């Protein structure tokens, strides 16, 4: 397995680093033939290394896009749920009562 350039640190990383520290192993050709390595970030956000033709071709962290995506979803939530609230004590007690009636207790 050859050394490759880590896209975040811009340094060469060894195969040992790759196999020990990064996951998952993704073979774009065999597992996701429809995806290009760049677009892989769109569906998988953990640090990963990309394999094509059974060779490591790049290391991607995806952290930036992960944060952007989650922040975007939270931003959308902030807007569309702007009148939102947590469950109130009364509602919580009602839920407790609902749960107590609905489920059967299994004693140890």
């Amino acid at each position: 397995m050859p050394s490759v350039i880590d896209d975040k640190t811009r340094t060469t990383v060894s195969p040992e680093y790759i196999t020990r520290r990064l996951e998952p192993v993704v073979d774009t050709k065999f597992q996701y033939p429809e995806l290009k390595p760049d677009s892989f970030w769109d569906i998988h956000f953990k640090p990963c290394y990309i394999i094509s033709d059974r060779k490591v071709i790049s290391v991607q962290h995806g952290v930036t896009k992960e944060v952007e995506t989650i922040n975007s979803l939270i931003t959308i939530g902030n807007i569309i749920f702007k009148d939102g609230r947590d469950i109130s004590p009364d509602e919580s007690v009602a839920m407790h009562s609902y749960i107590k009636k609905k489920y059967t207790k299994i004693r140890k």
Partner: protein
Amino acid sequence: MTFEDAIHKAFIILPEHKEEFIRYLKKFPDGIEKWLYSPSLISSDSLYQGDILINLPTCFIDDDGDTIQGEDFVVLVSNTCDMQLGRKEFVIVSPIVFLDDYKEHLNQFSEKTDQVLQDIRKNRIFSFFYLPPRNILPESFIDFSRMISISNGYINNIKRNISHKCLLSLSPHGFYLFLIKLTFHLARMETLTSV
């Protein structure tokens, strides 16, 4: 970040769905019954995040540390890819609460039952995701605060052999709304330096 910016930066929303999703959300919470569910996805061979299954055994741990068990309609919370057979040992699900059943208890403990029900219908309670009625699913909500794990093999067996228990799938736009509410419930805004 504006609303439109946020939609465009959410890579999980496919480009071809963004404009229509923006139109839907500008009317939100009105009209979700028209676009929340998919008319056809549930008949595919795969399980999808957001699918609704009926009458699954569920259990929780109560205040005494005892197990309480029952049966619920549930929504699949795990990622679609993690629900493929052999991928992960368990699937995360969230129970669904029928609004009429909850109302019965609200009437005992709240003086504002009608207002609470309206808040649920308008998706105003952070930990609840409102489900309009469809097929045999009555008006309901997902309770994200009670997620549990169920064997992946068991869920896949239901999909293959008892498929009538797989009741509904979310539409792409319904799925995006589901993810937004789930993220809003579980996550808080992060900065790049805090990662």
